[in-house]
């Protein structure tokens, strides 16, 4: 044992204090167990080296002792490895040792590590999901790991980053707070979801806002320096970023409401455009509830033209009009966009027409959402014409668009021809009784449509019911089709429609 002690002392010169302590203690003790308790910080070689001889000795001792003294128990003296592990756990922050350990010891150490350890130590060292599960559970009461790809570590870092970004106040908070985290989380963060960006603090502005609520807008015009955090550096550092979900606004402002809290400035817009242009891994980009008007939408869309991987664009709940829609239409044929969401904007007939023109020969777009716009029959007819040639779109949402019978007539023709559409939503329109009948006629020839929402669109109950019947038949047929080729697909497709309805 003397030998092992000295070698350990020699092998670990980095911990000078501990090793000197070791030496002093080894000077006094010559017995085998003596130096063990004081030693475990000089650990690296000990568990690996002394393990085999230890176990061998134990084995022999056990046998001998059992033969001689059945009452002797090993529990009195804890194992050296146990002690070492305890020590590692205790001193993990100062001297993180994990990779050198045997797998079962690693597991033990991980199970006992505190979730409060600084990220600088743990971020790149620990991959164990259990540890990060504990970290997450400790920080947040509700954890939806499925939203983060089933990885607790990813979830931890994404939510941690989100938290930092949410509470970042430009000009007040040190940007290093976020940039320091960057090297730790860059390999794990795939999605950035931020639903609030705090504006810079303006102390003199508050009384002004309080005095004259009317001139608030003027004050903003005078002082437009209410830019939010610039994501450029962060996004450039995140090498695996795939999803960016942003909302420029303030949550829970309560009675401190000011219009300029919800201001998405041009500088924000330009920097965001540059950021997403530079990020070549981005697949999903969402910018919602941020008062994005035509100009800003065009700036952002221009930066997304010919993006290599972008698949989903969500600009819902903004102020985008026809020009922005035209920009989006241009983007459709200059990218690989699969999902486009322009719900709750101010797109009117011309915008929808340009979108329809782009859609007519598009082969990428799978889903188009124009809910709560005002495209009216003019745009609806254009879209219906486009669908006659389109062979790709599966989901179309035109709810709340003031559509009426002419669109329904054209759509019924489309339904008879088209074999790719699976879901159409025409709720909250003025289809009328005749339109409903025509749609029913169209449906009778269709075998692929699985969902057709016609609620609150002035369609006769009877036709709605019949359409429902046809949809049911289609669903059953689709299920059958999915079942026949292979059995294991059955569950997925069977549960598919129900889920999507929900």
């Amino acid at each position, binding site marked *: 044992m003397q030998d092992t002690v000295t070698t350990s002392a020699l092998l670990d010169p980095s911990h000078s204090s501990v090793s000197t302590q070791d030496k002093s203690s080894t000077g006094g003790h010559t017995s085998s167990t003596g130096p063990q308790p004081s030693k475990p910080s000089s650990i690296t070689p000990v568990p690996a080296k002394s393990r085999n001889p230890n176990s061998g000795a134990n084995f022999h001792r056990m046998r001998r002792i059992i033969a001689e003294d059945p009452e002797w128990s090993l529990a009195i003296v804890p194992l050296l490895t146990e002690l070492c592990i305890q020590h590692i756990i205790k001193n993990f922050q100062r001297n993180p040792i994990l990779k050198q350990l045997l797998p079962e010891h690693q597991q033990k150490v991980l199970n006992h590590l505190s979730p409060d350890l600084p990220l600088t130590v743990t971020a790149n060292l620990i991959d164990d999901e259990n540890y990060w599960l504990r970290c997450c559970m400790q920080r947040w009461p509700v954890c939806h790991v499925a939203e983060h790809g089933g990885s607790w570590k990813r979830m931890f870092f994404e939510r941690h980053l989100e938290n930092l970004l949410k509470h970042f106040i430009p000009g007040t908070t040190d940007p290093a707070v976020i940039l320091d985290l960057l090297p730790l989380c860059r390999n794990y963060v795939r999605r950035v979801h931020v639903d609030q960006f705090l504006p810079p603090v303006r102390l003199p502005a508050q009384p002004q806002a309080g005095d004259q609520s009317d001139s608030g807008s003027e004050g903003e015009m005078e002082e437009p320096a209410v830019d939010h955090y610039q994501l450029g550096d962060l996004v450039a550092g995140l090498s695996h970023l795939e999803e960016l979900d942003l909302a420029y606004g303030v949550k829970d402002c309560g009675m401190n409401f000011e219009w300029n809290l919800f201001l998405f400035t041009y500088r924000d817009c330009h920097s965001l455009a540059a950021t997403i242009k530079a990020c070549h891994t981005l697949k999903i980009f969402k910018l919602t509830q941020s008062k994005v008007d035509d100009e800003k939408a065009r700036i952002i869309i221009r930066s997304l033209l010919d993006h290599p991987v972008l698949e989903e664009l969500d600009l819902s709940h903004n102020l985008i009009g026809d020009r922005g829609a035209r920009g989006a239409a241009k983007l459709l044929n200059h990218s690989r966009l699969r999902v486009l969401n322009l719900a709750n904007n101010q797109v009117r007939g011309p915008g929808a027409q340009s979108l329809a023109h782009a859609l007519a020969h598009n082969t990428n777009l799978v889903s188009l959402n124009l809910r709560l716009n005002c495209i009216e029959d003019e745009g609806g007819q254009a879209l219906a014409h486009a669908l006659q040639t389109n062979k790709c779109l599966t989901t179309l949402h035109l709810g709340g668009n003031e559509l009426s019978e002419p669109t329904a007539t054209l759509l019924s023709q489309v339904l008879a021809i088209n074999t790719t559409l699976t879901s159409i939503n025409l709720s909250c329109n003025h289809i009328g009784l005749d339109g409903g009948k025509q749609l029913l006629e169209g449906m009778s020839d269709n075998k692929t449509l699985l969902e057709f929402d016609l609620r*609150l669109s002035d369609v006769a109950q009877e036709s709605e019911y019949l359409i429902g019947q046809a949809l049911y038949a289609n669903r059953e047929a689709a299920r059958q089709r999915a079942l026949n080729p292979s059995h294991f697909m059955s569950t997925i497709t069977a549960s598919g429609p129900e889920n999507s309805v929900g």
Partner: protein
Amino acid sequence: MNSPGSLEGLEPKVDEHLSTQILEPSVHSDNPQERIQARRLRIAARLEARRREALGEYLDGKKESEEDQSKSYKQKEESRLKLAKLLLCGTELVTNIQVAIDIREIHRRVEEEDVKRQRIEKLENEVKTSQDKFDEITSKWQEGKQKRIPQDLWEMLNTQQLHCAGLLEDKNKLISELQQELKTKDDQYVKDLKKQSDDICLLLERMEEQVKNVMKTFREELYHIEKAFEVERQELLASNRKKWERALQAHNAKELEYLNNRIKKVEDYEKQLNKQRIWDCEEYNMIKIKLEQDVQILEQQLQQRKAVYLLNQEKLEYNLQVLKKRDEESTVIKSQQKRKINRLHDTLNNLRSKYAKQIKQFQEENQSLTLEYKRLVMQFKELQKAMRHFALIDDEKFREIWLMNEEEAKDLIARGFDVDRIIHTHHLGLPWTAPDFWFLKNVGPISQQPQKSATQIVEEMLLRTEEEEAEEAASESESYLDLPKQISEKTTKRILMLLCDESGFLIESKLLSLLLPLEQSECQLLRLDAIFSALGIESEDDLYKLVNFFLQYRAHHLSSSLQSKPCSQASVEELSVEGTSMESELELAERTEMEGEKEESLVEEEKEEEEETPPSPWVIHPNDVLKILEAFVMGLKKPRDSRAPLRARKSVRSDSKDSEYWQALSTVIPPSRLNLWDALYTALEKYHLVLTQRAKLLLENNSLEQQNTELQALLQQYLTSKINSELQVPPTRVLRIPTK
């Protein structure tokens, strides 16, 4: 109703299958017949099931258990439909609120729009009227300014005040109206809020209710379904138990039967066993005795074996010892041999190294020797060169000395001849003829005349023939040919011309082009030169051989019947050689015109021969020339080889004739003549003596005469001198000597 039907179709089949399995032959039976039957039954059942499935509704009238089964399904289906309906209705109920609010909102919006429009109209009207009033008031201000009378002004001001008050009142009224409206709106808003909260409450209530409902119904349905299943299960259990009991009873009965059978059998077996045991005992004893006997025998044998074994052991040990010793010896020998081998190896290595060394040494030696040899060869060559040089010099010297000596000798001979001639002519008064010897004509060392090259000969010949042509017949008879041993010059020339014309292919084309501008004769000459070089004809001999060959060929060809040409090739050659050897002499003879008879006769002979063989070359067909040439070249090859030593010998000149020559020179004056000379000499000496005496006498005479004259002169002088005159007696008178 379709889905349960199809499900039902499956269920009974299983059930039926179960029942058949129990009662009817099983597939796992041991009996093959039974198995076949079972399979057939199974197939039949399957077909039946399929048929039933196709029919669908036929299923209803079936067994009890089947109906039970369908009951539970019916229950499930019913509850499913019920629940679906419930959910649909519930959600509709919940969403109804949303729809209601939506439509209310739409109505509100429509109303709001109306109200807004009215309000705006009202406000606009109000603005118009108030503007009119205001205009009126402002116009009156102008009027008021013009008024001078205070009462009027006051009055007017009062009215103005009244008007203003009216206007203000209107405005205030409007404001209060609007405020009223706002208040009502506020109230409305509060009401709306309340309503909305109510709605939300309702929504929540409904949702909760829905959830409760749904949960309740789900539970109920679940309970129903469970109950249905329970009932079904109970029934199934009862029926199964019955079956089970029946089967158990049958089993028990069978078991009992088996037990009885078994007891009987056990008894039987026991009896048999006892019998068997007794029999076995007897047999056992017998075998035991027999085996014991066997054991004894075997023990004896064992003893014997042991003895043998011991003996063998001893032997083997002895052998072992011997072998060990041998082994030792062999090891010793082996080691010796090894040592020897080592030694031999050493020596071998030594020898090898020595051998190598020697090889090296010898190689070196060889190299040095080759070097030496080369050096010697060089030296030898140099020496040869030197020798040749010296030979040349020696030749030269020899020649010079020869010439000198010869000159000297010739001088002497000439003097001798002169003396002889003088003696003959002067002293003997005989006519003197100069002796004519060949060696007297010789100048320089005696040697064979160098052979002329073929071309030279040709050239000469051509020149000569040309000249001849000029002189024509005159010289023909003479024909101072050097060559024409037996062939006329003309013939030769013709043959050569023929050759020249026919074998142009042997000449290089370049040469031909060069020849064009030249004269005919020159051209021919050069052509022939080229042809000869091509044919390998170098010397005079070759040329003659060629010409001869031509002639022979022709002769051979033409006259196989003609008298056989006596001259075989050998004879011809002999002749030609003879001719050549004589050539120089001939030349000499011709030049000196002093021909020895012998030589002359020879020449004549030759000429005769030549005339005898004058076969015209014209007979030779030009086409044959090539064949002849080919044959000649073939024939020429052989003699070529034998000429090498001849040439070598050429350089060694023969001095056999020298002594003869010199001897001849020394004996140019015959001894008879010498005798003559001796006799003459003695005679002449005598004569000389006489003559000398005579001369002496003459001299004496002369001197005396001279003395006489002198004395006469002296006398004369004395006589003539003046003294005489003076003298009284002149001597003259005394002496009368005729003086003159």
